[in-house]
């Protein structure tokens, strides 16, 4: 028994306890029952724990929306910013304080609609920021309006006859705009999501992670997608894990399934380093 105890003490870091990463006096959180954002928050904290990040060195920047409120619950440096602009704030923060691990929590409407311009330019610059985009296909906080990622023919409060617009593939967008790390995962696979977020935080350069979350109360109810357990289980049929170890792809049976896992990873020059070296050399020259 004594031997066992000793090995437990010596082997690796302390067991992950999400409570040590939360501002517990703010709980229970404001999210609706069954909202997947809480699962994504746990996965993010778990990834930070496994990477052994110092809580004082984590800076969480969030925008407006259901996802934007998540930052407030984390016991770290948090920054609640204006709608669509968390990436802009994070860019300034990271350039001023390169020692911080800047993590942006944003939603599909925040990141792709209002902040679409900031996203593509953040991807282009390739500054060392981790962007976790929680995609629940709807503007949840403001009452369920259509968002750029709402699937076609889905009902929202602003599309009472079904969504007729085409849908954004945010990972393709980020990849095309130049993000050096792009990944996608569903909340139901929490350990896999944690591993993906770990890779993303570890990556040097702009890393974009789309987390498929579920909005049960507003989007699920309007579209008859079932209760939270049904919605979270259906995520498994919507994903196509084809980048983690070459898992067999049954594409013909799931034409609408999204690829998950690490989709892009490159070693493009990180903007912060380039910027600092240019500044240093220009000062020398002056």
């Amino acid at each position, binding site marked *: 028994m004594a031997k066992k105890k000793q090995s437990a003490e010596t082997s690796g870091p302390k067991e992950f306890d999400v409570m040590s990463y939360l501002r517990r006096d703010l709980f229970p959180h404001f999210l609706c029952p069954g909202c997947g954002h809480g699962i994504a928050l*746990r996965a993010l904290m778990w990834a930070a724990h496994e990477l052994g990040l110092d809580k004082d060195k984590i800076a969480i920047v969030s925008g407006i929306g259901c996802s934007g409120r998540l930052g407030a619950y984390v016991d770290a440096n948090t920054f609640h910013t204006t709608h669509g602009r968390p990436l802009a704030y994070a860019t300034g923060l990271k350039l001023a304080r390169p020692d911080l691990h800047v993590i942006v929590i944003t939603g599909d409407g925040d990141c792709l609609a209002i902040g679409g311009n900031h996203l593509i330019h953040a991807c282009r610059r390739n500054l060392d920021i981790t962007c976790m985009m929680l995609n629940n296909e709807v503007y949840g906080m403001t009452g369920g309006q259509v968002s750029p990622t709402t699937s076609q023919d889905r009902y929202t409060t602003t599309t009472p006859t079904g969504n007729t617009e085409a849908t954004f593939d945010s990972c393709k967008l980020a990849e095309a705009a130049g993000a050096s790390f792009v990944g996608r995962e569903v909340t139901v696979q929490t350990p896999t999501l944690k591993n993906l977020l770990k890779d993303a935080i570890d990556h040097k350069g702009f890393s974009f992670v789309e987390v498929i979350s579920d909005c049960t109360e507003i989007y699920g109810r309007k579209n008859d997608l079932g209760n*939270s357990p049904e919605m979270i289980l259906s995520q498994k049929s919507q994903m196509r894990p084809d980048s983690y170890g070459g898992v067999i792809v049954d594409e013909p049976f799931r034409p609408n399934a999204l690829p998950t896992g690490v989709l892009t990873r490159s070693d493009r020059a990180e903007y912060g380093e380039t910027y600092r070296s240019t500044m240093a050399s220009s000062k020398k020259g002056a």
Partner: protein
Amino acid sequence: MDKKITHKEPVNVLVVGVGGQGVIMVSKVLATICQEHGYQVKQSEVHGMAKRGGGVFSHVRFGEQVYSPTIPKGSVDVLLALEWAEALRWVNHIRPGEGTFISDTQHIVPPFACRNRKRGAEAGYARETSDQIISRVNKGFALDATTMARELGNERAANTVLLGLLSTTLEFSEDVWCDAISRFVPPKTVDVNLQAFEQGRAWAAMDHGTPEPVVHNDGPTPVVVGREEHEMSDFVQLDINPAWCKSCDICVKMCPERCLKLDDQLKAVLTDPDRCTGCRICEWLCPDLAITVHRTPEAARAAAQG
């Protein structure tokens, strides 16, 4: 050789076992021998869906004229079982007062018998002893063919041991059996299979009592889910914070052991602490961060204090 049709009415042999034991091989050997003897043979089987570890059965009927390929319930003349639980499943198909029962006493615990997946938990398995079963049939043999085959050097020859025992109840000569066996088993294992066949015949000639069932699988197999996070532990404590729970039902529906429920306040509660394996799925998927699983007494104590 004397090829005489002695059976006008069909003789029904039912071979049952678990996927991977060689049920189909046994029935193939038997059907070939009968056919070469001049009988009409009909054989039908269910396999494939069972994969390895599931139930497999094969009907072999031979006689002067056989019409149906399946054996009616209650008219099995010889039941040859390669596994004890499968033997019990089919024992009431034996012709009352006339049929012969041959079974290996090997226990292969099926996965669904391990209802409680905690380490060291008891597995649900048939409790009848071999004596109880043999007293219910006209003529019964229960032998530990697997151990006999293992002593010969190949555990998988257990089906041939039972074939040797079966050969003593039918009229075909030993040479015919040996010839058929050496044609159907893999070439490298012909010798060990012929030895096993001899052992089976020798066992039938011996005077013996019925042995007690031998369990070859020690308890339920630990469930391997493929992730290190799923490792089983002896200590499990589930803390659910009712103030944070928002009754979304995810933990109740996703629990693989079905040991959570919503109480009358619609808060998640653990109904059966003994069944909880500490797999952490409820903890990971709780959107309200209300569930914490402690795997060590130290962690539970620390959480209670802090």
